[in-house]
């Protein structure tokens, strides 16, 4: 079953301290959704650093290699052309295009990787815990299963309430389908 208890907070500072308390109480936080990026959230949740910049670097290196090797091949091997007496291998004149393709490949590869890693697609139908979490509320979702006892539920609710939650709701995505 795809069921969650969602605590909705209306202040990001309260959210950050709440995350600490909820983790101390022994619960595993499935997900936190916010309307804007909150500083300190990744550390609080223990997220590792994103490796998108590595993707960008590899993409840029690819663009660089493609650009410069193609131009050198085209100008020295495929169809050497005498332009105003300039040498066939004129590396300085290849710099602008090489730079542009480096940036282009880096940017495209990063954006594509971003979309893929986040699972974003034009036909996506995302699981929204509460529609106000992209507006003004911050949501913390704790996954519950069939084994979750009523005491667990009340412990979750208590922890949320103690940490200053604005609203608590239970969402079962399987039921809603």
């Amino acid at each position: 079953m795809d069921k969650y208890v969602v605590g909705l907070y209306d202040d990001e500072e309260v959210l950050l301290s709440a995350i600490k308390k909820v983790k101390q109480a022994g619960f595993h936080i499935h997900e936190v959704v916010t309307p804007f990026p909150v500083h300190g959230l990744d550390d609080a949740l223990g997220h590792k650093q994103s490796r998108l910049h590595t993707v960008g670097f590899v993409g840029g290196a690819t663009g660089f290699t493609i650009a410069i090797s193609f131009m050198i091949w085209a100008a020295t091997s495929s169809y050497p052309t005498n332009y105003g007496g300039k040498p066939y291998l004129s590396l300085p004149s290849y710099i602008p295009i090489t730079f542009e393709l480096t940036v282009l490949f880096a940017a495209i590869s990063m954006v594509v990787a971003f979309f893929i890693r986040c699972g974003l697609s034009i036909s996506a139908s995302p699981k929204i815990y509460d529609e106000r979490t992209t507006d003004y509320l911050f949501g913390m979702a704790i996954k519950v299963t069939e084994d979750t006892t009523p005491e667990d539920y009340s412990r979750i609710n208590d922890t949320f309430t103690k940490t200053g939650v604005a609203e608590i709701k239970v969402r079962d995505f399987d039921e809603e389908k």
Partner: protein
Amino acid sequence: MGSYESPIREPLILGDKDYKQITTDIVRSTQGFPPMAWVIAISIAGSLAAFYFFCVAWTVYYGIGVWNLNKTVGWAYDITNFVWWVGIGHAGTLISAVLLLFRQKWRTGINRAAEAMTIFAVICAAQFPGIHMGRPWMAFFIFPYPNSRGPLWPNFQSPLMWDVFAISTYFTVSLLFWYSGLLPDFGTIRDRSKGKFRKAIYNALSFGWRGEAKHWQRFESLSLVLAGLSTPLVLSVHTIVSFDFATSVIPGWHTTIFPPYFVAGAIFSGFAMVLTLMLITRKVLKLEDYITIAHIEAMNKIILLTGSIVGIAYITELWTAWYSGFIYEWFAFYNRALGPMAWAYYIMMTCNVISPQFFWIKKLRRNLYLTFFLSITVNIGMWFERFVIIVTSLYRDYIPSSWADYYPSWVEVGIYVGTIGLFFTLFLLFARAFPVIAIAEVKSILKSSGAAARVKQKAKDDAMAKGGYAEGGDLAGAHHDVKID
């Protein structure tokens, strides 16, 4: 939570806003039926854009002869407009990318609209290399694709070829940067939408964004790297455009000052266009609390700086022309100031050198009417700068027997005015369907830079000045943990 921000700093969000209010204020312009002013504006802009396509069709059908170019003046309105539009586009990337790297929070009120402006300006710019070709149906020749003519490759040593890659890259990267920033805001609009159809459209546009913490982390990492890539891109693209002239042998063109001069000029004209657009947008969409006078003043300071750089470049050119001892270079500038087309040179000088100097005075920097008037003046001046560089250098170059005159034909003027219509049509559509301010980014600075935050910080500072730590004050710059009771 964040670093200390002095309460005497001007707030970047006015009024007593909370996150919900910010969303409501900004999303309002995408809801409901468009107001009459919008309908009238897009009718005018749309008609001009239609006229643009008509003039282009006329040019392609009858040939470049319908333009008034001749052997001496081989480039005139076409390349003037190309450089003008590309220059305008640069401010958007600068605001998004460079101001992000410099952690200037005031960029959040204007970056969305400025980046949109960049994309539409580059669309307009990219028209000209295509339509100014003698045989535009052969435009694909400029791309290096395998062919049976040798294979014949384009000349990678030519700045015109560098332009192809630079403008394509600039357009693509700006589009990606702008669009990835829009994803969270589309998610916001989707979740506030009542109608099924509207919800489905904005869901598709948002690619299913829902604000997960890990996604935001990747989003910030992406934004930072794209900003880091876009900054050298801005500098390189207009440098490459300047190379179209600087790598030639024409007096008045062949000078090494062109790259920094063009880049500064691009930022100058770009910010002027951002101001023109933002002053109208903030008034019409009632967003004065988010695009405040502080934003306007900051932009005017940049206009003052870059305008002064352009002014110094003009003087440097004059001095270098004399110092070089090369009579053709000296004549090029003598001719600009005292020749038959000197009127264009004086328009350029007045608009570009004199007008930004008003912004030394704080009261004038914060005067909206003067800012609007000067922003238009600067754009006119920068158009004339490109016109002067191109036409006055060509029409009186080395051999007097080749000297010729130039005045535009109706087709050229129609194309130019038409691209202005195209630009405004696109911008008006953007203002209607997309959030013109970056909702999520503005929310992220509310706590640190909102008007309410300033009041709170002042109260804390006063309390600390009076009673030390007992009243809950804290040292400037110290990070403090939120107390949990």
